[in-house]
């Protein structure tokens, strides 16, 4: 595809996305779902870099999400500062937390890494629910409405452009990350640590850097979520957010740019518009996560590819056999 055409298509679909909730009816429920989808997708993208690119499972990303929300609540109610300043505070807090956690877990791999990150998440719940500085079990209330350059985002319809902008920035960051040296180094460390070391890549440094890239993304979702809800409490650390993130990351397929967004959208649409009650929704979400990992390791994209492959084989069986060398030539001609 021509680069100019490609750019035009991307800009076109980005503009279309902005008006999507309006086109779908523009009711408060639709705007509310759209805002939550954007926020939770950003939250999931943070985890996506760790799971899909680095190949580790961090179970502490709910903590970064909560750090963003709590930092925003504390800064906006305590110091009365605006969204840009609270975003800066959120990013600093997330970097600090990720740095500490990253250094402690630097040498831990696979399940020990996940075990420690899970323990961090569980302990964070007890700390958030008991520490009066964080409002204890009541949480923190009275977060002012989102107001930036005179634009006051009272209500989900007004907040939607902000959430959408955050989502677009995140998508751009993810795309740049995967093309950057760090992104390539992460994949190499993930798939072939020895080769990575031989190529002069320090696996531990790479891990730490990816961690530092990932945490602020998830935290910035918490930042906007605090404004959306106007209060924060320890329920931000519930397993729900962790399961939602993990499901979104694996449901569509690893390292698919729009994967986490589509995954979050599917889950949220089910919960907001086709809900069977809280408990059954839990069972559905958990089951989706189990079934995808156990039976569809490539996600829905992998399933689609497998089906296409199967279809191609069936067609080939019916067609006359082409000699091997001409076949390669054909594919070469058909290729880009």
């Amino acid at each position, binding site marked *: 595809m021509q680069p100019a055409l490609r750019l035009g298509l991307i800009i076109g679909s980005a503009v279309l996305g902005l008006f999507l909730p309006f086109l779908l009816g523009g009711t408060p429920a639709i705007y509310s779902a759209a805002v939550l989808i954007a926020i939770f997708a950003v939250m999931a993208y943070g985890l996506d870099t760790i799971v899909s690119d680095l190949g580790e499972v961090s179970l502490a990303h709910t903590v970064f999400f909560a750090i963003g929300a709590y930092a925003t609540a504390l800064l906006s109610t305590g110091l009365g500062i605006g969204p840009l300043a609270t975003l800066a505070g959120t990013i600093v807090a997330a970097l600090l937390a990720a740095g500490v956690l990253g250094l402690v877990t630097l040498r831990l791999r696979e399940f*020990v890494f996940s075990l420690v990150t899970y323990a961090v998440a569980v302990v964070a719940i007890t700390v958030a629910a008991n520490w009066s500085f964080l409002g204890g079990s009541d949480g923190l209330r009275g977060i002012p409405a989102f107001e930036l350059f005179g634009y006051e985002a009272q209500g989900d319809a007004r907040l939607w452009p902000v959430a959408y902008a955050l989502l677009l920035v995140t998508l751009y960051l993810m795309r740049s990350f995967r093309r950057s040296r760090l992104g390539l180094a992460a994949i190499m460390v993930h798939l072939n640590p020895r080769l990575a070391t031989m190529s002069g890549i320090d696996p531990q440094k790479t891990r730490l850097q990816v961690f530092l890239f990932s945490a602020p993304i998830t935290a910035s979702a918490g930042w906007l979520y605090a404004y959306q809800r106007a209060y924060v409490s320890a329920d931000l650390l519930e397993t729900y957010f962790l399961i939602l993130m993990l499901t979104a990351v694996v449901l569509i397929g690893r390292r698919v740019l729009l994967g986490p967004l589509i995954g979050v959208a599917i889950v949220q649409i089910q919960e907001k518009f086709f809900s069977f009650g809280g408990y059954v929704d839990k069972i559905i979400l958990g089951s989706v996560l189990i079934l995808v990992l*156990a039976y569809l390791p490539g996600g829905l994209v992998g399933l689609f590819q497998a089906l296409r492959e199967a279809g191609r084989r069936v067609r080939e069986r019916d067609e006359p056999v082409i000699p091997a060398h001409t076949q390669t030539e054909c594919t070469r001609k058909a290729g880009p």
Partner: protein
Amino acid sequence: MNLTQQLVNGLVLGHAYALIAIGWTVLLGVARLVNFGHGQMYMLGAFVTWYSVSRLGLPYVVAVPVAMLAGVAIGYVMQRVMLQLTLRQDLVSIMIVTLGFGYVLHGAAGLVFGSTGQILETPLSVIDIYWGDLWFTWQDVAIIIVAILFFALLKFVIERTGIGRTARMVAEDPALALLAGIDVKKVYLGVFAFEGAAVALAAAMVAPRTPILTSMGFDEVIVTFVVVVLGGIGSITGSYLAGLALGLFTAFFGALVSPAYTTAAAFAVLIAVLVLRPGGFAAAPGSR
């Protein structure tokens, strides 16, 4: 504060912790598997016991095996679903799948048992014992006895019997075990069923000490992590001693510092162990 009373509390807690963690210890030591749904399986074991006693009117001694059977069923189903992942030794996916199972169990328990807290009363937990100025219940005594018996039996089975040898061989080298004619799948299914039974037994014994909620299980997971890591992964004797140490630590920390932060303190112990003794993870699979 009465020091001796805290010592008694610590001993009881310690045996409770060891019992809660033993399923994971075997899972990890014998089969190199993990289960992040452990806490929710504990919760379910407690609720099945409670339901059998207070709703079905079964005697406590019958309710315990009923809960264990439920645990076996859940453990079997879990392993059945993720058998391919286990055979591929895809630990990352296994972790997430077990986390998902925990979430499903949480939802299912809420659906069946509701979200209100319950008290699991057993014939043993209602009888107090006063000994000097010390206080405990018969349930506490039962926890200690059951834990010691269970650990002794398990150590015997793993070290001295054919079942133990088979399981250890599978842990050491699944491919070689397969070559030797061992049905590896059966061993994995059996180990997971054992994990289910063990955690349900722990729940039936320990849960009467506190009110039970369908949202509980997280503290038990932290306890399990600490015991498994502290004890040297997969070591049965190590787990027993680690459970005891953690129990005493928790009892004194709760009395001297703050009961609200005992889980956080246990986690601090976990981190300290990891930083000071990273070699604990190097324990060979199947080692005791």
